[in-house]
């Protein structure tokens, strides 16, 4: 791993280079509402808002689109003809994504790759270089430090930028893909300097987030598995509407539905669409029987999947502590606060003076 320095002017130049070479650049960027940013393809560096507000949605849609075509079919005289979709994708760079968002992509590689390899996911993964930007901590809903991560985490990134002296970023080159990007644009990167400033940025951000939820969420797995019938699960989700906003904004929620849609009387598409375990119909059997018939059971599933099932299966929490679910919930379901309650029961760190 090596380190370089990248000034803001050189970063703008790098983006211009990439765009002129035909690479798609996705970054947190302005949208019509000035209070909001969104991860979207940018046409120039001016559109990017690297130090702006946290985009309400993570960039997972650039790997797992909210809706995507799996195949096309057409009725012919002697049967059905199928048309495959491409699993190769044009090059893209995701720039300035938060470490929590970037970690999610690497976590999801596990479920997308176990046994059966999802070529649609990995096609986009392979075409993408991720340049993340260390975060200064957003607000009281952040809890990345509680899930074993941090505002300067490297997981999932090919290059991590850390704000340093003045207008410069310290660029940590983490993977061969990151190295290739630096080599292809070597004139944009200078000799490393400003390590002290970057270090104090990281420390300040970590301190800020760590006080939000001082627990170790990696230690909840056993308690969750052993307390399936705990009374907690009978009351926690009484407020939940089952709207699934939490899953839509979550960088690690990846559940999907597969549906057919007509495109004419003799042809149509099969699509994969985002879905959520919080929806009542998610698990309904053909007979009408529903193994998760209440919202409390569905909420338990969401918490267990993230903090017990996924870690047991894949060795990683299915949560990066971004806090989006808590910010997005119209009913005030607050996952970090709930994790605090569970941690107390599980003896995995006791929140002092409340978690908010």
């Amino acid at each position, binding site marked *: 791993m090596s380190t370089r320095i990248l000034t803001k002017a050189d970063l703008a130049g790098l983006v211009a280079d990439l765009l002129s070479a035909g690479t798609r650049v996705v970054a947190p960027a302005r949208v019509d509402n000035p209070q909001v940013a969104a991860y979207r393809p940018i046409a120039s560096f001016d559109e990017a808002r690297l130090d702006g507000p946290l985009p309400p949605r993570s960039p997972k849609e650039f790997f797992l689109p909210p809706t995507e075509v799996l*195949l096309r079919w057409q009725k012919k005289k002697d049967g059905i003809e*199928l048309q*495959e979709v491409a*699993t190769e994708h044009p090059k893209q760079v995701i720039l300035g994504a938060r470490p929590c968002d970037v970690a999610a992509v690497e976590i999801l590689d596990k479920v997308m790759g176990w*046994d059966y390899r999802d070529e649609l996911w990995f096609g986009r993964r392979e075409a993408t270089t991720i340049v993340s930007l260390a975060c200064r901590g957003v607000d009281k809903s952040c809890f990345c430090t509680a899930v074993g991560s941090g505002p300067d985490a490297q997981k999932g990134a090919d290059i991590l930028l850390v704000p340093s002296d003045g207008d410069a970023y310290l660029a940590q080159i983490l993977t061969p893909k990151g190295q290739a990007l630096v080599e292809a644009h070597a004139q944009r990167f200078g000799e490393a300097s400003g390590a002290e400033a970057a270090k104090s940025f990281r420390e300040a951000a970590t301190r800020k987030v760590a006080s939000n939820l001082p627990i170790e969420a990696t230690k909840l797995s056993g308690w969750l598995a052993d307390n399936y019938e705990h009374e907690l699960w009978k009351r926690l989700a009484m407020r939940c509407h089952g709207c699934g906003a939490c899953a839509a904004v979550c960088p690690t929620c990846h559940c999907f539905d597969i549906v057919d849609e*007509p495109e004419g009387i003799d042809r149509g598409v099969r699509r994969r669409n985002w879905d959520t375990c919080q929806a009542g119909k998610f698990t309904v059997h*053909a007979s009408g029987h529903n*193994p998760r018939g209440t919202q409390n059971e569905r909420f338990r599933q969401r918490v267990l999947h993230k903090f017990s099932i996924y870690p047991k299966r894949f060795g990683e929490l299915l949560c990066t502590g971004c806090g989006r679910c808590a910010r997005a919930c119209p009913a005030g379901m607050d996952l970090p606060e709930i994790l605090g309650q569970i941690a107390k029961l599980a003896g995995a760190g006791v929140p002092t003076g409340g978690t908010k």
Partner: protein
Amino acid sequence: MNLYQPYLMRIEEAVDETPDTRTFKLVFQDPKVAESFDFQAGQFGEYSAFGEGESTFCIASSPTRKGYIECSFKEAGKVTGALRKLGVGDTIGFRGPYGNRFPVGQMEGHDVVFIAGGIGLAPVRCAIWNVLDQREKVGDVTIVYGARSVGDLVYKRELEGWAKRSDVKLWQAVEPGGEAPDWKGEIGLVPAIVEKAAPRSADAFAVVCGPPIMIKLTLPVLEKLGFSEERVFTTLENRMKCGLGKCGRCNIGPVYVCKDGPVFSAKELKALPQEL
């Protein structure tokens, strides 16, 4: 070819088992796929009616019968409704085989009891034929099958065949009020008929499938009869979309039914959270 791209299959035969249940015999359109396709008893697939979507059923035919597969399904929604409208010569999509299998190999030298209710006979039938096609390899074979009424019994032609075999003990049952005037079988619920049939349990295997409540009430009967919970198997049919362990739908606690199942021993079932 991406994971979600189905094989195309031609419907060779279509049989109405009951007013709402249909069986298809299917062959692969691509001869190369037909040649290389292999599966084990208990595995399932995703069947598609193009334009409506996919539905999950077990493969109901035995792996000992090469060159085709069969599936049986009950019309219950959009996809099964569209599939039911298809007939001989029509094309459907198939992805699979997915999931684990019944331990047919381990049954060699042992008695085997098959217990099914309603359309639950479909996955069990796969194992029944798998065993009957190598009849000399196992001990006694007992089949207990029940349905709500005579009209709801599936695979009637095969039930007749099994009834005539001297190397199979068949117990057929319908629920009270479900019998026809000429009904010669049992009247009662499956768990009670299993208790009455009282098959020999020493070192025996049992395969059970049916509505969740039937499975739930049959397992204690088998336990009472002395069956080892490690040799009693059932197959679960949770709602699925991908069948590949990705779409996040079919899990029961830590277990993915599509990958760790659909076949589970009674012992494994007991260890799962009660979310069935």
